[in-house]
């Protein structure tokens, strides 16, 4: 599939390298909440700021929280991550509980995963146990020392036996049985 004319990034599914084994490195670096003090569309975000924001900041000392009040503009959340991704999200008319859930999503995800087209839905570091195929897999080892071209390797070996050959084999067999009876 060609993806040249799409702006969506593509990539493979993968876990953060060993994150959480031994220690956990928080991936969210900074979160900016932009809101208006008067508009109704910012109502949910304002409630979140009044009730939950201080607890959120205390629980996540590694996250820098900015508040940016601005007059007569829509409410927006911008999250920045350790890998440099920046997620912009409009929370226009979202309720308090919805915003709580979205901020939890932004806090726990690693980078901007929603704007990534997955090329495959599975990923493994070890695609094959027996090793990837090469042109010399399953090859006859006799070919290593053979002097090519050689009729032994070039002749068709899948044809049915000819009548002449069959007759010759019958004769050979008869000769053998003659020898045995003579003895």
């Amino acid at each position: 599939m060609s993806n040249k004319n799409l702006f969506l990034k593509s990539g493979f599914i993968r876990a953060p390298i060993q994150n959480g084994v031994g220690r956990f490195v928080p991936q969210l670096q900074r979160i900016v909440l932009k809101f208006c003090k008067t508009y109704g569309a910012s109502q949910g975000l304002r409630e979140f700021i009044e009730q939950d924001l201080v607890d959120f900041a205390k629980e996540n000392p590694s996250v820098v929280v900015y508040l940016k009040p601005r007059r007569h503009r829509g409410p927006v959340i911008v999250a920045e991550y350790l890998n440099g991704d920046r997620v912009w999200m409009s929370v226009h008319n979202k309720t308090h509980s919805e915003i709580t859930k979205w901020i939890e999503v932004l806090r726990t995800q690693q980078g901007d995963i929603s704007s990534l087209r997955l090329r495959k839905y599975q990923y493994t570091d070890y695609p094959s146990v027996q090793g990837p195929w090469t042109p010399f897999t399953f090859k006859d080892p006799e070919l290593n020392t053979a002097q090519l071209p050689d009729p032994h390797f070039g002749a068709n070996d899948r044809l049915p036996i000819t009548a002449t050959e069959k007759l010759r084999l019958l004769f050979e067999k008869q000769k053998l049985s003659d020898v045995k009876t003579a003895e």
Partner: protein
Amino acid sequence: MSACKRVQQWATFARTWHIFDCKWQDPYQSAGVIKKYLMGMHKPIYHPLNDCGDVVVCINSREIALRGEDWRRRAYFHHTGYPGGASWTLAWELHNKDPTMIIRKAVYRAMQGNLQRRHTMERLFIYPGEDIPEDVLQNVTNQIRQLRLVPTRLDHIPEEEVKNYPKVMDYPEDYILK
């Protein structure tokens, strides 16, 4: 990518050379086999967009065998592009002019007419006889099996073997062989 994986990549996509003996082979049936090797369709990693085609060296193209009346009846068409520039060359005439041409055209026609075809044809080497350049031969690591058995002439079989071959009957003493 680690050094080990890089080597693995080279190994998987290595271009191998095959040799094919055209002696007594039908070029139009062999073309289907040669085409598969040229395009890499015999590999499990085949994909039309990946460059996995192999090199095929055809020898003895002078000794191909055409079916039925084909040597006399089959015509190869060419047009120079000028008015009256059409010409029809019979198979035997073409074969006398260039003994590699019939097999080359057969392979060319066996492939689909896309942009890749001419580049794939560059990987086909055809030699009219047995002797091929040393630098070509030393790359060859595999031989493609022929489709037909090569018949052996009676006067090319050693006399000892002919004498010992089982006979169903003997000719009478007074029988005159034509």
